[in-house]
């Protein structure tokens, strides 16, 4: 992996390549395995969704790809370099469920912060306005995060993650806190942006429907520690639309992924699952 890091801009590299990744967290005087032998490739410009039950290690995987967490074992290459170099070249965008906006900055300043830090200060205000426009909150540029609803905050987080033209967008349940209608809106908003920018996307979600509706491929993680148990190609046409959800192809893909998940989850090794002796 390291040998290719001299050519970070060569887009023939996959956006993410994970090989034999394992991760253990220290807990007291022991360690707890969160991921075990995970392999995953995200091609350049591809939209990959990751689904799996709670505690299977989805957030852990994303944190490792983002370079926030050093893996215990295995190789990870991001945009042709190691995770650190991807971070250093500021090609990443991150959106999490609780987006961690800075409450003392207004919407525009929160988005601008990314440009200030990455050094894209030329025409920064125009770029900020463009992004706010695109995610539909330009009217609220002078509002503070505390004055916004959850859905609007997620739009700001999306703008903040996209404003510096990142080549890889990492999203961890970005729409988890939203009501169903805002959520639907945001999904198509995201797809529109993605189709324009052709960013590569890793999208972690609890919602199987969301995964199937958005992604080119759905990666299914199961177990504790989590492993990639299946990968499902989503061959629905683009651009996706709401009406596809009634179509038989969508329904059958949905059923496929659902089946892979339920059967793959062994309840006996998870606290949050039901005890064995329950009928």
């Amino acid at each position, binding site marked *: 992996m390291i040998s290719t890091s001299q050519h970070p801009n060569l887009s023939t590299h996959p956006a993410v390549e994970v090989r034999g990744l394992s991760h253990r967290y220290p807990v007291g005087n022991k360690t707890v395995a969160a991921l075990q032998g995970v392999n995953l490739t995200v091609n350049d410009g591809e939209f990959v969704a990751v689904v799996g039950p709670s505690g299977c290690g989805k957030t852990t995987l994303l944190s490792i790809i*983002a370079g*926030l967490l050093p893996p215990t074992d295995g190789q990870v290459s991001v945009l042709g370099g190691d995770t650190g170099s991807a*971070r250093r070249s*500021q090609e990443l965008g991150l959106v*999490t469920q609780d987006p*961690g906006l*800075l*409450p003392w900055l207004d919407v525009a300043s929160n988005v601008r912060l990314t440009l200030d830090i990455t050094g894209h200060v030329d025409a920064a205000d125009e770029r900020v306005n463009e992004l706010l426009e695109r995610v539909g909150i330009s009217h609220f540029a002078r509002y503070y995060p*505390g004055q916004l609803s959850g859905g609007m905050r997620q739009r700001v987080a999306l703008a*903040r993650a996209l404003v510096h033209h990142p080549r890889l967008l990492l999203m961890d349940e970005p729409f988890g806190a939203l009501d169903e209608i805002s959520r639907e809106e945001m999904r198509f908003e995201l797809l529109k942006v993605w189709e324009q920018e052709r960013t590569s996307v890793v999208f972690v979600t609890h919602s199987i429907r969301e995964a199937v509706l958005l992604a080119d491929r759905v990666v299914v993680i199961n177990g504790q520690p989590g492993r990639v148990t299946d990968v499902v190609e989503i061959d629905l046409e683009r651009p996706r639309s709401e009406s596809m959800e009634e179509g038989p192809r969508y329904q059958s893909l949905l059923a496929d992924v659902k089946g892979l998940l339920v059967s793959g989850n062994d309840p006996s090794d998870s606290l949050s699952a039901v005890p064995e002796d329950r009928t």
Partner: protein
Amino acid sequence: MNRQIRRKVIIILTPVLASALLLAVWETWVRVKDVKEYLLPTPSAVLTALIDDPGRYAEGARLSLQAALGGLLLASLGAFILAVAMAHSRALERALYPPALALKVTPVVAVAPLFTIWFGFGLAPKVLIAAMITFFPMLVNSVVGLRSIDPRAHDFMRTINASPWQIFWRLRVPSSLPYVFAGLRISVPLSLIGAVVAEFLSGSAGMGQIILIANGDFDTPALFGAIFVLAALGIVLTSSVALVERRVLFWHHSSVSL
């Protein structure tokens, strides 16, 4: 509008009326029980003492305030700088906690004479005593504040490769402000006490000296006059901190989530 004004009036009036009531009860009690003035003066005697020589109290208040604010400033800056180090290293925190605690349990009366010897006369030892007494709460609050960053915001800044310096100034420092202000609210009255005790022990001019002389002369009205002035200073200072806090931290408590 009308309603808002009425609300504000109530908020201001309640404590004023309550204090007036308290003073009235006090006055009546002292008069009815015929308590000797050198034990407990009536509030009216205290007011008379204050009105008799307002210049003296004003000058005393000025001097004590100067020392208190100087000490507070010194302690806040010192504590914040040390807190930056401690917030970055648990080991350093553990190492420095016992000496900081030792400083905290050292009674001012024990070290005030030493401070005069070490730091000379005049303002310096008073400022240092006010600083010593306010250092610990400022340190503890600053450390907690600098640690209390939103981990999601931190993660985001790391993914866009913000430097430790950028993270410090743009995330840690603003995040610490609510705690720093909470520390200030605790420290403001403490700094006043520190300055006054220093003046009391060294006999140097200020509210402490007024108390010292009043005590020596059995002039309890003047003593309580000084306490009233200190209470007023404490309330004004605390309110000022609260006011600045509301301005600076508009995004914190006061903000309404829609």
